[in-house]
């Protein structure tokens, strides 16, 4: 469309997030003629899995990032061509019922209206607190992968990688293909996890290709010859103003201190729940994925009518499932607008549902195999749990036993969760510390109450809001 997106106030649908789920939803809805606005905080479409895809597509770097990444080229092109109003580099900070969404773009705030909302805000890496994790030089594996995709950057010296899950294996494979060097892999998968995961394997056998891919990564990494230490349970990063040394200890009690400049950590990913929580959508604790998940019907609709959550925000499922969930929600929205009758809706949804069940078949196996080690939720007292306000695990523990406060009271007492990240890095750790200190299940403890703005907004940006309040 040639019209400037910011001049259009109202669309049928608002999609938040331009990753696999958001793009698939937009393409589907546009095919049925609804108007749709897609806002995203990144400068280009693709989400995290296809970060930088349009830029990288034109370079030889595309080949070494693998097939799953390459698949994003066509998706981004289809999205660009679908006729959605696409607003990159836009931050959503509030949604009011009805719906009116407030966003900031290029230093200016404004509100837009839509009759339905699809939240496709994806996931973030699970915070991995340990002493020294705030030192420059400690990053997540996901961060390093984004640096590889968007800036063609790799750690300068041989890098230490600690954690578990498919992402570290994929990143190490990509890093070696790019010419990077690995000092060692500290595998934090606890002893006995494979046995525990095996009962989920029969269901996942339909995903034989994925299993084979994981196995081939593991074998290639073994052949690469860098040290692989199994059952690592404890980590400590040390140094003056930056990472200089890394201490680790295995479940068997083997310990070591090594020189390190960059340490990458990863213990799985969790859905972004801030936007659904702020909208009052019901959530539930998912014991398999150790996180909150929005309560959704078969279309991805939340407890709030016409608010949908799709993609990894609906529970971690990967890019393939994300696209299918995006299409299902889109079809439901299309039917709400009367562009698809009941029969047409069911017919269109049937194949998507079948494909979704197939896409998720291996997930219980992966969840069980890579469930985070217990130390992730019980860091030593000296660990900064809240990175923003610098509140330690010890302080939270001693406060948690006085009068059995919940997360919101602890936040008021200690400022944990009050910084700019709004609890995105400390919420789950705090919940587990409270649960352990008060001897109750973590699902009962709950989470911080999430209030707008969802992202920090300056007074200058607020002042730029061109709002006419309706006469009372």
């Amino acid at each position, binding site marked *: 469309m040639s019209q400037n997106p910011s001049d259009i106030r109202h669309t049928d649908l608002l999609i938040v997030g331009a990753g696999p789920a958001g793009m698939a939803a937009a393409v589907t809805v546009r095919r049925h003629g609804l108007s749709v606005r897609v806002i995203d*905080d*990144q*400068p280009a479409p693709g989400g*995290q899995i296809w970060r*930088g895809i349009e*830029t990288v597509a034109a370079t030889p*770097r595309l080949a070494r990032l693998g097939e799953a990444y390459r698949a994003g080229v066509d998706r981004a092109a289809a999205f660009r061509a679908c006729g959605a109003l696409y607003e990159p*580099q836009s931050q959503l900070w509030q949604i009011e019922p009805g719906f009116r969404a407030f966003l900031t773009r290029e*230093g200016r705030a404004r509100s837009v209206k839509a009759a339905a909302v699809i939240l496709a805000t994806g996931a*973030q*890496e699970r915070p991995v607190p340990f002493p020294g994790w*705030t030192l*420059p*030089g*400690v*990053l*997540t594996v*996901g*961060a*390093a992968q*984004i*640096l590889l995709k*968007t*800036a*063609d*950057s*790799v*750690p*300068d*010296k041989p890098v230490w990688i600690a954690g578990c899950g498919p992402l570290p294996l994929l990143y190490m494979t990509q890093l070696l293909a*790019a*010419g990077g060097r690995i000092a060692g892999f500290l595998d934090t998968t606890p002893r006995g996890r494979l046995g525990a995961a095996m009962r989920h394997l029969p269901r996942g056998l339909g995903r034989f290709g994925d299993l084979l891919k994981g196995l081939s990564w593991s074998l290639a990494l073994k052949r690469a010859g860098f040290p692989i230490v199994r059952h690592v349970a404890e980590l400590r990063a040390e140094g003056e*103003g*930056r990472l200089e040394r890394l201490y680790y200890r295995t479940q068997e009690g083997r310990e070591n201190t090594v020189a390190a*400049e*960059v340490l990458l950590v990863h213990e799985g990913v969790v859905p*972004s729940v801030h936007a659904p929580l702020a909208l009052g959508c019901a959530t539930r604790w998912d014991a398999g994925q150790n996180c909150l998940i929005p309560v959704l019907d078969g279309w991805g609709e939340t407890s709030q009518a016409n608010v949908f959550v799709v993609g990894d925000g609906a529970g971690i499922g990967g890019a393939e499932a994300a696209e299918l969930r995006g299409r299902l929600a889109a079809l439901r929205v299309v039917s709400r607008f009367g562009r698809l009758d009941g029969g047409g809706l069911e017919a269109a949804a049937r194949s998507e549902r079948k494909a979704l069940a197939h896409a998720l078949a291996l997930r219980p196996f992966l969840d069980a195999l890579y469930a985070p080690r217990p130390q992730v939720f019980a860091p030593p007292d000296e660990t900064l749990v809240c*990175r*923003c*306000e*610098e509140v330690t695990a010890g302080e939270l523990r001693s406060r948690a036993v006085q009068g059995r406060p919940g997360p919101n009271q602890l936040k008021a007492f200690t400022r944990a969760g009050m*910084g*700019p*990240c709004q609890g*995105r*890095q400390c919420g789950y750790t705090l919940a587990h510390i409270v649960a352990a200190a008060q001897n109750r299940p973590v699902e009962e403890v709950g989470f911080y109450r999430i209030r707008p703005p969802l992202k*920090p907004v*300056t007074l200058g940006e607020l002042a730029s809001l061109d709002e006419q309040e309706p006469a009372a």
Partner: protein
Amino acid sequence: MFRKLHDPGSATVTVHIDGCPVNAEVGESVAALLLRQPGGWSRTTPVSESRRAPYCMMGVCFECLVEIDGQGSVQGCLTPVREGMSISRQHGRRSLSA
């Protein structure tokens, strides 16, 4: 602490980090550029004034807050470099004027 694998050739812009001119590749983020500078850090914390560096690169940790062209507390990982951009590492709380 990070290095770029290819030579961006002519696809570069010049920005200033704490007043010093630095070349960056078109399209990359401020946070990615900071991680290639000595020390790699982006800000000091308001509480203990300790150094922090970009951690998540996807907009959820807020460790890469910097001052850009006079505007404080900008997320460096969500901001692509621009010719002539002035980047300052942020010290403690963002000042009211920034």
